C-alpha cells in the first residue's frame, strides 16, 4: 500500500475518488476550498465550481438521484445557504450515495462567525461523521458513502480547520468503479409534496432509530484506557490534542450524530470523572446529559476559538506556556500591491458615504487606512441591506452605496438586485469585478469565463445581466481611474433609481506576462505622504522618506494619481 503526505482536504478528494464518486460540486469557502480543486484533478470524477452552496447541494442531490455517488463541499456558513435542500433531501433519501462535506472554523481564521454545524445534522436528521486526521478524512468519506446507500440518507462529514488544513500520511488504494444505479421513477420518494413527504417523514424517523442503535456497535468509535480517574470524550482534531496533553482515558467519537450514547455510558462507568472536551458548542455534552450521563466540560473549555495541547493542559492542570509578545506591530492581511479594490475605498472614504459591504478581499477596505466599510454581514447582503437602509431612511438624503465582488454577486447578489428594482429602490451598487473569486485563493466563477479546470466557457456579461434585471443606469469604470470612479459614484448617488457601477480590473495576482518594472519616487517628492493614504504595501515610509518597493509594485499608478507634485514615475527599462 502506498503512503502519501496529504492535506486533510486532499484526502477527502482522494476518498471520494476511491469511493467511485462521479460528481463533485462546491462553492469555495475556507477551510473547505482545496477539496474540490483536488477532486478536479481526477479524470474519472466530474468536478465543478457551483455559483453558491445551495446550487452545489442541488447539483449533488440531482446526481445522486441519477444513480451516481455524489459529493458537495462547503464551509460552515455555506450550510446556511444550502440548508433548504438538505432538510428535504433527508426525507427523499438517496439513490447513489450522497456525502456533504462541511468544514467548521473554530477561531474564525477566515470566517464571519463560529457556528457549529453539528446542530444541522441533528435538526435535519442527517448522520454525521468526524475524522481526526488526514488518513481518517479519506477513510470516513468512503464509509460515509456506504452508510448513505445502506441507510438511504445523505451523510455529513464534518471537518474543522485543523483537520482540513493539516497534512498527514494517508494510505491510498485504488478506485472502486461502481456502475450507475438505475433511476426508477418513484414520486412517493422523490416528489416532496405534503402527501408524499408525510410518508417520508415516517421513514426518516425509522431510519434515525435504526442508526441510533447501529452506531452503538460502530468500530469507528474507540476507547483507550489510560488513567481511569478521568475519562475524556472527544472527537475530531481535539482527540489528537487530548491524547497528547493528558494521560486520561479517552472515548473517541467518530459518529458525532447520532452519538453512540450507550457506548459512552459504558465508558463512563469505568472512569471516576467524565469530561467532554469539544470545540464550540456543548453538543456532545448536552446529548450525554439528556441521557442521564453525568459529565461536564464546557465550563472548563469555553465555547470560543480552537483548543490545543497547550490550552487543554492549561485548563486542566494550570500548566502555562511562554506568551506571545503582543507589543509588536501586527501584520494583518492586506490588499495586495496593485489590488483593484484599493482605489474604490479611497474614493468612498473621500466622499464620506455609508458603505454597505460584503465578503471578499474587498472587506479589507474596512481596515485602516481606508476604513471605508460600514456593514458586512453575509455573502450577498450588501445590495439587500443597502436597499433596506435606503427604504428606512427615505426621503432623507441618500448617502449609501453597496460594494460587492463578482463572485459574491453571482453567489447571491443577483436576487437582491432584482428585488431592489422590483420594489422601486433607489440604491447605488458597486460591483468590484476582478474576474475571480479572490479571497479564497483564486477560484474561477462565471465572471472569469473559465471552468475549474481552466477550460473556456461562457463569460457572464454583468452589464447585460443588470440591464435585463431592469437597472437602467449601468456604468463600467476602470478600477485604476480614481477620477472616473469618483464621478460615477457621485452621478449615480444623485439619481433616484437603482444603479450599478461595475468597477473592473483583473486581480493583481492573476496578471499574466512579465512583471512591470514598477514605479519610483523622484526628486520632486515633498514627503507629503498623500500617496500613503491608500495603504499600499509597496509604499513605505522610511524615517520620513517615502519609498516604493519595485519588486512588489505592479505599476497600477493609483498612487501617482494622488501625488500633487508628479513625484511618482514609472521605472524605465
Amino acid at each position, binding site marked *: 500500500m502506498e503512503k502519501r503526505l496529504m492535506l486533510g482536504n486532499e484526502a477527502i478528494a482522494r476518498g471520494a475518488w476511491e469511493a467511485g464518486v462521479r460528481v463533485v460540486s462546491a462553492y469555495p469557502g475556507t477551510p473547505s476550498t482545496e477539496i474540490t480543486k483536488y477532486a478536479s484533478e481526477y479524470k474519472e470524477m466530474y468536478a465543478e465550481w457551483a455559483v453558491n452552496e445551495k446550487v452545489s447541494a442541488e447539483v449533488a442531490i440531482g446526481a445522486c438521484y441519477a444513480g451516481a455517488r455524489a459529493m458537495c463541499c462547503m464551509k460552515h456558513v455555506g450550510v446556511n445557504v444550502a440548508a433548504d435542500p438538505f432538510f428535504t433531501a433527508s426525507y427523499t433519501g438517496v439513490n447513489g450515495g450522497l456525502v456533504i462535506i462541511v468544514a467548521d472554523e473554530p477561531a474564525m481564521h477566515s470566517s464571519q462567525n463560529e457556528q457549529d454545524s453539528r446542530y444541522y445534522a441533528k435538526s435535519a436528521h442527517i448522520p454525521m461523521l468526524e475524522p481526526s486526521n488526514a488518513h481518517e478524512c479519506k477513510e470516513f468519506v468512503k464509509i460515509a458513502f456506504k452508510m448513505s446507500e445502506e441507510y438511504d440518507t445523505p451523510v455529513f462529514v464534518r471537518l474543522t480547520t485543523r483537520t482540513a*488544513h493539516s497534512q498527514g500520511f494517508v494510505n491510498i488504494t485504488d478506485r472502486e468503479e461502481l456502475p450507475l444505479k438505475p433511476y426508477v421513477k418513484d414520486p412517493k420518494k422523490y416528489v416532496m409534496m405534503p402527501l408524499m413527504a408525510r410518508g417520508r417523514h415516517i421513514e426518516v424517523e425509522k431510519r434515525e432509530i435504526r442508526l441510533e442503535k447501529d452506531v452503538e456497535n460502530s468500530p469507528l468509535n474507540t476507547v483507550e484506557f489510560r488513567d481511569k480517574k478521568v475519562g475524556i470524550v472527544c472527537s475530531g482534531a481535539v482527540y*489528537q490534542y487530548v491524547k497528547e496533553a493528558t494521560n486520561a482515558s479517552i472515548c473517541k467519537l467518530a459518529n458525532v450524530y447520532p452519538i453512540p450514547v450507550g457506548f459512552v455510558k459504558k465508558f463512563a462507568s469505568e472512569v471516576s470523572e467524565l469530561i467532554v472536551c469539544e470545540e464550540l458548542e456543548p453538543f456532545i455534552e448536552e446529548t450525554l446529559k439528556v441521557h442521564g450521563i453525568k459529565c461536564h466540560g464546557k465550563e472548563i473549555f469555553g465555547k470560543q476559538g480552537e483548543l490545543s495541547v497547550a490550552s487543554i493542559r492549561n485548563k486542566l492542570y494550570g500548566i502555562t506556556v*511562554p506568551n506571545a509578545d503582543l507589543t509588536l506591530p501586527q501584520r494583518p*492581511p492586506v490588499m495586495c500591491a496593485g489590488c483593484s479594490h484599493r482605489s474604490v475605498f479611497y474614493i468612498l472614504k473621500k466622499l464620506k458615504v455609508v458603505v454597505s459591504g460584503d465578503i471578499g478581499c474587498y472587506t479589507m477596505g474596512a481596515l485602516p487606512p481606508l476604513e471605508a466599510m460600514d456593514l458586512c454581514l453575509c455573502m450577498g447582503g450588501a445590495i439587500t441591506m443597502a436597499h433596506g437602509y435606503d427604504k428606512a431612511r427615505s426621503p432623507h438624503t441618500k448617502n449609501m452605496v453597496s460594494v460587492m465582488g463578482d463572485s459574491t454577486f453571482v453567489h447571491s447578489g443577483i436576487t437582491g438586485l432584482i428585488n431592489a428594482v422590483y420594489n422601486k429602490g433607489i440604491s447605488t451598487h458597486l460591483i468590484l469585478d476582478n474576474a475571480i473569486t479572490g479571497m479564497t485563493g483564486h477560484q474561477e466563477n462565471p465572471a472569469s469565463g473559465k471552468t475549474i479546470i481552466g477550460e473556456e466557457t461562457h463569460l457572464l456579461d454583468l452589464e447585460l445581466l443588470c440591464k435585463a434585471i431592469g437597472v437602467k443606469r449601468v456604468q463600467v469604470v476602470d478600477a485604476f481611474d480614481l477620477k472616473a470612479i469618483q464621478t460615477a459614484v457621485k452621478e449615480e448617488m444623485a439619481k433616484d433609481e437603482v444603479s450599478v457601477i461595475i468597477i473592473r480590473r483583473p486581480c493583481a495576482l492573476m496578471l499574466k506576462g512579465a512583471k512591470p518594472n514598477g514605479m519610483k519616487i523622484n526628486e520632486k517628492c515633498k514627503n507629503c505622504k498623500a500617496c500613503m493614504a491608500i495603504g499600499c504595501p509597496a509604499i513605505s515610509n522610511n524615517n520620513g522618506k517615502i519609498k516604493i518597493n519595485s519588486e512588489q509594485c505592479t505599476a497600477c499608478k493609483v498612487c501617482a494619481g494622488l501625488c500633487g507634485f508628479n513625484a511618482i514615475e514609472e521605472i524605465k527599462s
Partner: protein
Amino acid sequence: MENNLNILIAGVGGQGTLLASRILGSLASEMGLDCKVSEIHGMSQRGGSVTTHVRISKEVLSPVITEGEADYLLAFEKLEAFRYRHYLKKSGLLICNDQELMPVPVIIGVAKYPENIFEKLKAEGFNVKIISALALAKEAGSIKTVNVVILGAVMKIMGVDYKTAVRVAEAVVPKKLWEVNKKALELGYQCTIKSV
C-alpha cells in the same frame, strides 16, 4: 537528524512557507517517520503573518506545535522571527532570513518596525543564525525561491546530506520550476551562515 522534531516556519503570506514545509514532510517520509504539517493564517494569505507547523516523530498527534517546544524556528522575515520566538525551546535554534517586510501598521505610520532584532534575540539568550536568502534567490534566478534557499541552508544545519536534500526537494517542487529551485537549494546549502 534527530527523530523528534518540531519545526516552526514563520513568514509573510506569499513567501512560500507551505512548500518549505512540504520539503520537510518529504524528508520525514524518506526517514520512515510520521509527520504532520499544519498551516495557520488569517483570511487566506494576502500578506498577513503566516506560520506552518511541522512535526516529525515516530507518532505525531497534534498537528500544531506547543509554545516553548519548537526545536527550530525558521523565519522568512525578521519581525516574524521576533513575533514567534516564544515557540522556541531554550535549546532551540532560530534560523532567520535577513529580510525586512514592513507590515501595514508600520507603512501607515501607526507602529514602528522594531530595531536591532537580532541583537535583542541574542540578548534574550536565543541561538540565532542568519542567512541572506533574498540575494541568493535572486542569484538563483527568482525571488520566489527564497523558501528553497532557506530550506537548503536548514537541511545542511540539520545534517542532511546534499543528495538527500536534493531528492526530497525534487519530490515536492513542481516539475516546471525545478531548475531554478535546484539552483536555489544548492546556493542555500552552500551559503555562509552568520551567527549573531
